[in-house]
């Protein structure tokens, strides 16, 4: 009724290719962007911006990076955090060693370095698939973390290995306050998400899915497998690198290898599995699930009368409940939150009728 396609025809192929073909989707997107850019920084408390929204956005972006590679191109990877680390350290070192380099350029170049690293560790994908490739990307994870810990040049020879990110300034504006850091993160996330959505709907996106679904048939129809796979590693690496730089610069404010360990890679992988492989919106839903659910659980446990469960047990209990929820959810909906969202939209299209 409110979400109907009736009367919305595409007069040209160009109109049919729009990113959001339905009027309602477009308006909802505009409203969401307006809310995120104008309303949230004004009303959001520092706690919400710092501790919830910024990590949510950065993890969504990291999910997006991995989803292009795994969800669309079908190449398994456990090296997400490694490429995030490359992005973060590259941006840090560029800011340190190239005086006068604008921050935005530094973050983008961090993405380029991560893309190069990703392509390098993606080379085995030309010969191996599936779990074997997973092991090769795992090597990236351990190697990169070792490299940044061992070679102190990367952290400017600081004793602790933990370095403070340089101040965030764009064209003279100080972005170090929570709202500024939030807006910077949001800007990157929105731009890269739109780019990714364009890519997956373009020839390259079709080639990725073709390689994912049936690589022999893809080769037979003339799709260049090596180029297609390596481009997936490159774009995925670029987005992960930018996400890593943002994680260090706008969320933590420090750059350290331990922030990008294997558990971070798993976290990003969980985001796309829970959110939905091969879906753009799924990354945001998955990240929201991963970031918000633990917070919700700890809020809920705060409601329990004191003394029922002792504080030490409580944290473990939260982890158990969190794990159970993930298992239960994946049994119910293996294709992820994006699928549920899609079903909801299908329902809304015909509402109030059933079919």
């Amino acid at each position, binding site marked *: 009724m409110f979400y109907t396609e009736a009367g919305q025809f595409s007069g*040209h*192929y*160009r109109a*049919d*290719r729009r990113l959001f073909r339905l009027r309602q989707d477009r308006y909802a997107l505009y409203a969401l962007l307006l809310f995120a850019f104008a309303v949230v920084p004004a009303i959001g408390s520092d706690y919400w911006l710092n501790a919830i929204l910024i990590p949510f956005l950065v993890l969504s972006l990291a999910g997006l990076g991995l989803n292009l590679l795994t969800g669309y191109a079908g190449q398994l990877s456990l090296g997400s955090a490694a490429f995030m680390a490359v992005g973060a350290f590259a941006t840090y070192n560029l800011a340190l060693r190239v005086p006068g380099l604008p921050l935005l350029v530094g973050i983008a170049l961090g993405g380029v370095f991560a893309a190069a690293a990703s392509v390098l560790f993606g080379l085995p994908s030309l010969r191996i698939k599936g779990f074997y490739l997973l092991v090769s990307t795992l090597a990236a994870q351990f190697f990169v973390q070792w490299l940044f810990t061992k070679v102190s040049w990367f952290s400017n020879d600081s004793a602790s290995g933990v370095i403070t990110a340089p101040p965030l300034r764009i064209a003279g504006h100080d972005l170090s306050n929570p709202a500024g850091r939030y807006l910077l993160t949001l800007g990157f996330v929105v731009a890269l998400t739109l*780019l990714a959505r*364009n*890519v997956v709907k*373009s*020839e*390259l996106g*079709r*080639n990725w*899915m*073709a390689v*994912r*679904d*049936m690589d*022999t*048939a*893809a*080769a*037979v*129809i*003339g*799709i*260049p*497998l090596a180029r297609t796979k390596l*481009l997936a590693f490159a774009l995925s690496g670029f987005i992960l690198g930018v996400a890593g730089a943002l994680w260090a610069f706008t969320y933590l404010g420090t750059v350290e290898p331990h922030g990008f360990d294997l558990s971070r890679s798993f976290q990003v992988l969980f985001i796309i599995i829970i959110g939905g492989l*091969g879906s753009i919106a799924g990354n945001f839903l998955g990240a929201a699930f991963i970031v918000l659910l633990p917070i919700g659980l700890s809020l809920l446990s705060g409601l329990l009368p004191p003394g029922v469960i002792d504080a030490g047990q409580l944290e473990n209990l939260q982890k158990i409940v969190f794990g159970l929820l993930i298992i239960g959810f994946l049994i119910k909906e293996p294709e992820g939150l994006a699928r549920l969202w899609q079903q909801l939209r299908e329902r809304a299209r015909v509402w109030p009728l059933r079919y």
Partner: protein
Amino acid sequence: MTEISSPLLRLEGISLSFKGVKAISDISFDVARGRITALIGPNGAGKSSLLNVINGVYRPQAGRIVFDGEVRRRMDPHRAAVRGIARTFQNIALFKGMSVLDNVLTGRNLKRRSSWLEQALRIGRAPAEDDAQRRRAEEVIAFLHLQPWRHTLVSKLPYGLQKRVELARALAAEPKLLLLDEPMAGMNAEEKREMSRFVADVNREFGTTVVLIEHDIGVVMNLSDHVVVLDYGRKIGDGPPDEVRRNPEVIAAYLGTRH
């Protein structure tokens, strides 16, 4: 080089074995331009292997392939696609997670000139090219009567339609040579008739040379101009349908007995 009289495809002494097990031994035949050639024979005769040799999925140990005037010891799949060989598979090899339209569009990937960045940013040559590719894809979709399903995921389509989408994807590449591996397997009589008509239409409308594998001998005799019979990796018959049907060796190996 491309005169009409020369065969589009010539196989000369092709032999293929897997770890010593002979799949194809010393097979030679010609595929005439603009004709429909059928490969028949009992299961395990080496028919699918032969298609895989023609478009480079398998590499034969001996023999050579002359395609469109170009002599090769072996093909590779990409090279074969560039040279104008498209195919369908015995077990449907569609891209399951994609719509009918997207599957057909993948068939046109070699016709692209714009870079992926132009396409991602929708600048330069990309928009006009996207329109042109879509138009060609729609022509193929219309030709095979697939319009009602263009936005449907192929995994949601019934088997017969999936077979047709696979033909559409191959056809979208505008191939010179179309290899069809059992395009009518598992279909009922109605669907077979429909598919036969599509194959014949493709051949007539676009002049596409077709090599197909088929078990239904009625279909083969009606559809094809030329029949090649394989048995245990050897060629035992080669000629017009009527001649092959009377060949005693063919009757003994395939037509007369049950398998």
